[in-house]
């Protein structure tokens, strides 16, 4: 795995995150996205943006998946954490000139939200769906 890409993505994100906000990622998920990115002939800077945006959108959805209505304070913080990460994803994609990625992942997010309302809440399904969308984006726009 390209550890530098991952380290740079985490550095990029840490500059924008409030201190108490932690990303919601597991090593396997990130490793698979990094490996997918390695197989496409796009610039390092674009790989970095795609990875960071994918991590943001995955984490944002995960924050909202993990909510517990039992604890008001944790519920509030969880909602805001997810909202903040969604907002950051928009800012980052715009700042790094990845408008096609922005549109692509927004469509993915919309479909995810509809699936979540319908009761789909498996993290595995979320990741499989995200990975498919990143692949489809790279297939279309990596030339």
């Amino acid at each position, binding site marked *: 795995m390209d550890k530098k890409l991952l380290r740079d993505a985490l550095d990029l994100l840490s500059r924008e995150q409030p201190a108490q906000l932690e990303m919601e990622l597991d090593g396997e998920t990130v490793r698979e996205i990094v490996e997918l990115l390695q197989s496409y002939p796009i610039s390092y800077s674009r790989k970095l943006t795609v990875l960071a945006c994918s991590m943001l959108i995955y984490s944002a959805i995960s924050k909202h998946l993990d*909510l517990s209505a039992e604890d008001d304070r944790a519920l509030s913080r969880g*909602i805001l954490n997810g909202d903040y990460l969604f907002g950051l994803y*928009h800012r980052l994609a715009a700042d790094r000139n990845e408008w096609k990625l922005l549109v692509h992942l927004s469509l993915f*997010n*919309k479909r995810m*939200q509809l699936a*979540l309302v319908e009761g789909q809440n498996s993290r595995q399904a979320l990741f499989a769906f995200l990975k498919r969308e990143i692949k489809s984006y790279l297939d279309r726009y990596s030339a």
Partner: protein
Amino acid sequence: MARAALPERLGIDLAAIDAILESVVESDEELPRGSIVYESIIDLIRAGGKRLRPIMVIVGGRFGDASQAGKVMRTAALFEYIHMASLIHDDIIDNSDTRRGRPALHVKTNVRTALHVANYMMARIVEWSSMNERREISEEDAYRCAEIAGIVTELCLGEFKQLDTKFNFSLTMEEYLDKTRRKTALLMAECLKHGAKAAKAPEDLYELLHEVGEALGMAFQIRDDLLDFTRSKESIGKPAGADLRNGNITLPVIVALRDPELAPHILRLGTHSSDEEMERVIHRIAASRAIDDAREIALAYATKARETMLALRAHPAYRDLEVLADHFLD
């Protein structure tokens, strides 16, 4: 004689705004008609609202080219969707059971559904706004939309601050003003600015309009904080002092804490306080000079807005900005 409502005075058709808001979901071929998401959003739009943010976008747009009216309306819809989605999340966070006199969405459905309906609204408006009027994805529109959707981070930072300072009476005036700017004023400032941008107004107007919108937004929010103490439950749709009951420290409270007689009573409040104790302190704050002092601070922002506006007085749309300011600041 009663003064005409704001949209009428500005020649803005609220029905046209509502129609475009509905068209955002109507045009989503992936959203089944009759689904909980579809019905919830249509209900929310039809419940009405002041539509202040779209109105501000339209007024900002009047500083530009009238031929860009379609783009301005699309920007107006984008801001209102961001606002509506954030209200759904706010109602969950604040435990507010009603919105415009009706059950809030999380009460009508459940927390999880309401949360994802709001997220759908954000995702859908970004998808919709990234397309031009011919429904083609456009680079220019996608960037504009992302820039606007990115403002949510600032809204969240304001909300984090509010959450972290519940019943924290050491919140300073500066912290309160910063929180208010992020939570309310910034979005209003961006409405005026992006209205002008969408209408391709001269670039030197963007920052001026942003400054006016921010000052108006601050005055508006402080006035809203005051109303929470001075209006009855019937007129604001929630019990007086609801902010303080929820632990949210607003300007009247910060100012009232300077009163040596009142301060000890306020400082004793917390999640443990009984309704009677809350009621007593809320009444005392409402009757104190803190209300007038807080009103003075709102007035200072109003004055700043009016002074900044003067730089735009040669423009025909200045009159509309004045109407907007009159409405916010009366």
